[in-house]
């Protein structure tokens, strides 16, 4: 046995589970009454959601003037939040698609939740481009539909139209990916449900899935296809988001480094958010056997990798500015580091570059509270990264007479909190109603790392 253990990779799932146990472990918490802790969490997150909804309703009825924007700084919290949430969304697709293509089987424990996170994050993100417009009731004009105006189409040269297409495609594909992945599990729920409504609902949603292998075969193909399509998609989405800035003329925005820089940043923040959520979920839902310390360890390695890329990008930006010979460009970066928002800049660098360095140490990577804290800090840092990029470039651009500062209003802060409220509310509901772990996939990796014994079934 000892030799076998050395020869084999470590098991992905701990506790020597049987297949039925897996089903039970994941589904049982959903079927039981929600715990008090869950109710408390839902209460908190939904009150934030309500706060945000009220803020948005107020903003839409009164005007964008209820935000702290001005004629110099036309975007701040709104687009910061948008990019932040879109970035968060990237880890889900990364885990489900890219890791799938790389045959990283450890993803199975976390991909469901990560994908859910993606969808919720994209939903949070999608709110902001709509509400940031002065007339959100006309936001649909960004879609090129036949109309009575000539017809007058849209401007396909505008990165905002690219955004519109990228985000809606990304949301659609992610949702489909998630749903396809969930199909066998929905069937499982349907078949073991005792509550009538649950059986009915799962019955409708599971599309009559019955585990037929002919379906499984195509399922695997489609899943691979979606993963294959999702991988360039996820990269394109944040690339396009970065073009919102990179195609502009503003110093500090107008940079070719933005696409890889933003994609790395997105994955970085997304991984941190996945880790945060997984650490919460494994505690709350007692899934320590499925989301093991090794999972956390591996994800931490991804975090440190992307952190290094982001750190390199920060350095490159400064170098490019220095090398450009453009005094506007040089000024913008000096202004970031030493100007009025220096604290934001150094928060960003500290949280995104310095703090993750702790993850070089295995002891840190396997220390759950430490990882949790680092991940929270990374997300704070990544929020500030977007804020700094947007606000410092806008507030002090070419003509000094235009310079002005920016300060958020209560409405903006409430909207940001509301987006977190929406995110966590959806996540909590997800935990209650949908298997947090991809049951069918985990079953497939159960034997991973276990000696294959002929008589495994006495």
């Amino acid at each position, binding site marked *: 046995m000892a030799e076998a253990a050395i020869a084999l990779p470590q098991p992905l799932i701990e506790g020597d589970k049987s*297949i039925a146990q897996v*089903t039970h472990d994941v589904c049982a918490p959903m079927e039981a009454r929600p715990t008090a802790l869950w109710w408390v969490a839902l209460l908190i997150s939904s009150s934030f959601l309500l706060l945000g909804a009220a803020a948005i309703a107020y903003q839409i009825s009164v005007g964008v003037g209820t935000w702290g924007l001005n004629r110099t700084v036309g975007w701040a919290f709104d687009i910061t939040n948008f990019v932040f949430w879109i970035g968060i969304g990237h880890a889900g697709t990364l885990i489900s698609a890219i890791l799938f293509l790389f045959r990283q089987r450890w993803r199975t424990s976390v991909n469901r939740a990560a994908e859910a996170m993606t969808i919720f994050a994209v939903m949070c993100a999608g709110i902001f481009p709509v509400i940031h417009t002065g007339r959100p009731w006309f936001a649909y004009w960004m879609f*090129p539909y036949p109309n009575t105006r*000539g*017809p007058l*189409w*849209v*401007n*396909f*040269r505008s*990165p905002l*139209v*690219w955004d519109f297409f*990228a985000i809606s*495609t990304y949301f*659609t*594909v992610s949702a*489909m*990916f998630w749903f*396809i992945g969930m*199909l*066998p599990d929905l*069937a*499982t729920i*349907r*078949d073991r449900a005792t509550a009538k409504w649950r059986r009915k609902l799962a*019955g*409708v*949603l*599971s*599309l*009559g*899935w*019955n*585990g*037929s*292998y002919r*379906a*499984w*075969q*195509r*399922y*695997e*193909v*489609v899943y691979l*296809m*979606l993963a294959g*399509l*999702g991988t*360039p*998609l996820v990269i*394109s989405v944040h690339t*396009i988001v970065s073009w919102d800035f990179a195609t502009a003329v503003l110093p500090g925005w107008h940079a070719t480094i933005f696409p890889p820089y933003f994609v790395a940043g997105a994955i970085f923040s997304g991984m941190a958010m996945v880790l945060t959520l997984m650490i919460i979920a494994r505690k709350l839902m007692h899934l320590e056997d499925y989301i093991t310390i090794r999972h956390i360890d591996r994800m931490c390695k991804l975090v440190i990798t992307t952190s290094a890329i982001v750190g390199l990008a920060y350095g490159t930006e400064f170098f490019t500015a220095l090398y450009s010979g453009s005094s506007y460009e040089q000024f913008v970066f000096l202004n970031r580091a030493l100007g009025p928002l220096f604290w934001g800049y150094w928060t960003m660098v500290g949280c995104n570059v310095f703090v993750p360095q702790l993850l070089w140490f295995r002891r840190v990577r396997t220390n759950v509270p430490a990882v949790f804290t680092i991940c929270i800090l990374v997300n704070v840092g990544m929020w500030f990264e977007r804020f700094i990029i947007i606000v410092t470039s806008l507030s002090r651009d070419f003509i000094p007479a235009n310079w002005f500062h920016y300060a958020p209003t209560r409405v903006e802060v409430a909207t940001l909190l509301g987006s977190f409220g929406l995110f966590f509310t959806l996540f909590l509901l997800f935990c209650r109603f949908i298997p947090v772990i991809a049951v*069918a*996939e985990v*079953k*497939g990796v159960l*034997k991973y790392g276990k000696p294959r014994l002929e008589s*495994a*079934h006495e």
Partner: protein
Amino acid sequence: MSKRLLVGVFESEDDTLAAIRASRQRNFKIVDVYTPYAVHGVEEAMGLAPSRIPWVVFALGVLGGGLKVWFEFWTTAVDWPVNVGGKPFNSLPAFVPVTFEVMVLFAAVGAVLSFFFVCRLYPAKRAVLPVAGVTDNRFAVVLEQTDSTFEPAEVQKMFEKLHAVHVEEQITGEVA
């Protein structure tokens, strides 16, 4: 038109695979295999032909991308050319991002819809399971009793040898 089926129910994927291989060896007609997860090797064991969905996806991707690039060109350079920032009417490089997105969207939606279509999956479809538990922890191999050479008792014995937990006969007109 009813069929007589023999269903072997197993507990592990290894046993299931062995049962499939054994059935194939004996030229039994395997109607289908039901597993709670995608068990690797069943495809080869059952001798299923590779899916043609990738071709559909490819075609749809090309179609989506092509349509979009044409649409962008037509709207900005033909139908109503507008001088936007001094850029040429046909600003092809600027059309790339949206073209890519629409290509992916067409391909992905096509993949999923064609999957639903070929597997006959649709909302609220009545799920037909050979035995309970195939979505939990049971594996089922369904054989069709094609002709008289098919001896149910013998097959049952064979399955039981391969650790089948349960073997049953079913008569149905519907199981696919």
